């Protein structure tokens, strides 16, 4: 027994948790202005968007989404969208669905705003890539709930911590697929740009990004899907929407209400997935790829 105790004593006590706690405490005291600013910014984005999406009658919105689906994909998809969203509107949890949509759009928008430039930088520099990749791994494998704790600490309960936790959680595939897409661009095509005297900036904008766009759009799609998967968790910190429907049902053991919330999430996911997918398919280089397959 003595030996076991001694061996255990040999392990140093690493206070990583305390360190993190201290860092968070310090940030909270000294960076109040920053967090307030961020909170105001996110609120200013989500609030009006929710208002916009919920302003028209549900039936009008359903028809708008159906038209979008028809235009971007096919009349079949348009019809499916109308039926699916019609079901949601009929449950009736339309307003919650729209505020979830707003949350997803804002968080994935912010995530992409960071992810795409970071992806561009790490596609150009191996060293930057070596630094960023482990961070991305950490962000993806850390349980999503863990982000909520400091988020509540900084921003209190509400939409903002939910949105920011979603941003962090959904960002990695955006970075990874941007990097992948850019690295996959034919080296000889890039070299041709250099050989004809194009600047690196021009090569990035005119050649690399357009050619990487289908892959980047896959990243956008993934970011949106991950953001949607966070909504239930975000609901726990008071972000509202479908997350709230589901968590409330969970705490009150209302099987039916929980099921309704779940179905609405699934329908929203399918619509968003197919819509972003077809936007990716409409890019010039995706068309070029199809032409290549035909030939």
């Amino acid at each position: 027994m003595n030996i076991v105790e001694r061996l255990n004593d040999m392990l140093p006590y690493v206070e990583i948790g305390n360190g993190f706690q201290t860092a968070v405490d310090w940030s909270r005291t000294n960076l109040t202005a920053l967090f307030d600013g961020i909170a105001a910014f996110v609120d200013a984005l989500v609030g009006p968007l929710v208002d916009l999406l919920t302003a028209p009658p549900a039936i009008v919105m359903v028809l708008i989404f159906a038209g979008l689906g028809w235009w971007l994909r096919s009349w079949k998809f348009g019809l499916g969208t109308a039926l699916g969203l019609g079901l949601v509107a009929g449950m009736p949890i339309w307003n919650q669905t729209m505020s979830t949509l707003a949350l997803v759009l804002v968080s994935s928008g912010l995530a992409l705003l960071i992810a795409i430039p970071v992806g561009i930088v790490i596609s150009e520099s191996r060293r930057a890539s070596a630094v960023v990749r482990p961070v991305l791994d950490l962000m993806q494998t850390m349980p999503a709930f863990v982000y909520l704790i400091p988020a509540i600490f900084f921003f209190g309960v509400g939409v903002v911590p939910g949105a920011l936790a979603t941003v962090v959680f959904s960002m990695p595939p955006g970075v990874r697929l941007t990097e992948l897409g850019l690295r996959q661009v034919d080296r000889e095509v890039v070299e041709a740009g250099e050989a004809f005297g194009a600047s690196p900036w021009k090569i990035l904008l005119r050649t690399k990004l357009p050619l990487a766009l289908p892959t980047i759009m896959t990243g956008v799609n993934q970011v949106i899907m991950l953001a949607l998967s966070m909504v239930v968790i975000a609901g726990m910190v008071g972000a509202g929407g479908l997350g709230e429907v589901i968590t409330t049902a969970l705490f009150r053991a209302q099987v039916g209400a929980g099921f309704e919330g779940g179905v609405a999430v699934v329908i929203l996911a399918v619509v968003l997935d197919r819509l972003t997918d077809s936007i990716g398919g409409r890019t010039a280089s995706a068309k070029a790829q199809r032409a290549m397959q035909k030939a």
Partner: protein
Amino acid sequence: METVSALRVKSLYKVYGNRADKAAEILRNSPDRDEKLAGLPVTAAVVDANFEVKRGEIFVVMGLSGSGKSTLIRMLNGLLPPTYGTVEVDGVDITKLKPAALRKLRREKMSMVFQHFALQPHRSVLDNAGYALEIAGLPRAERREKALEALRMVGLDGWADKLPQELSGGMRQRVGLARALAAGTDIMLMDEAFSALDPLIRREVQDQLIGLQAELGKTIVFITHDLNEAMRLGDRIAVMRAGRIVQIGTAEEILTDPSNDYVAQFVADVDRTRILTASAVMERPLGVVDVNSGPRVAARVLRETQTSAVYVTGRGKQYLGTVTADAATQAVRDGRKDLREIVSTEYVRTVEDTTPVADIFAPCAESPAPVAVVDADGRLAGVIPRITLLSALGSLSSDADEGSTTPEPTHAADPAPTGDAMPTGDTLPTGDTLPTGDTLPTGDTLPTGDTLPTGDGTGTAPAGNGPAATPEVPAQAVAEPSARMTGEPA
């Protein structure tokens, strides 16, 4: 400006690896340099390249993959910085230019055509052709006009609105060519530009390039691993091996006088009859008489040489024609004094000294006496008996065979005749090693131009033993006479 070469490369080195500078220094300074490099974690891609490319010239750099030719061409426009040495474009050392100045120089002076075309798949053929102009910042309308003009030149003006993927490989490379032409630069770098095309298409695009070059007078640096392509296109050819340029010269110089065993092996597969000219195989004529010497002298020479006709030359060795034995005897009998009356150009065929050997077969077969070879000034340069033509081919082939088996090919020791020199008798196989008498080998072994595949030959065709430089293009070697020539030069 005319005196400055379009491109001048001086002691250029490219070494990859951690201690590239150190390695380049060792390579420069020590005679037994390869051994000293052994310990360093480096790859020497280009070692001590020196050459100049003249204006309006097609300069071909030829070598197998890994010989450093792609690295070399990328240093010419600064896509790769050299480890040591200078590259001058119109007298400007581009290795010292800042990135922005280098980009400007590329826009204004050099364009490039790539092996796998390197077109932008998401943009139309027209946009691709006008790419260089777009980078140069030309307004859209002007860009369109020039790009269309370039597409017209390569015969693709009807395809402007297609995407590159909708075109065949050959057409795509013509778009690549149009892109380089539209750039309007004097220098074009072509990196294995036709290597990805199948042989028939390749031939077609090669012809197009030769035509365009003749029309536009571009300076072209062309990289290839295909010797036949090099011979076809190149005004001059640089042969590269393991990073070093082992020989620079015209196609004929490289064929007839390879600088070492490696080059000799490399050229073993080439269809020599298309490259070698009459001057390389002709012999000193046996019976030549001056036009003023009279029929009696002609008749005596005919007797002495045991030939059916003598060659008659006038002032300054001007070739006038031949006198046959019958005509000379008749003239002596009739008591005529002037050879001019009986000289004929009908009996013996005449070829120019620049005629490719492939085109001499027919005149040779039709002519009862050796074909007369005249130079550009009309002087009698030599003659080609049928048997010489065949034996010359035979000796070329057997030289090539020996090049791959013996350490020191005879070529290296004994320079073969060059274009302007009269071959002396001993550089060609002498009579006693030839098949009997004056008759041709039997019909089934007669060379018939370039139509016989080597496989149908005698089984000793050079293609079988050579380094197989061009697997995708069967060497268009001529089938050899069944009686193989054993005669070596000297």
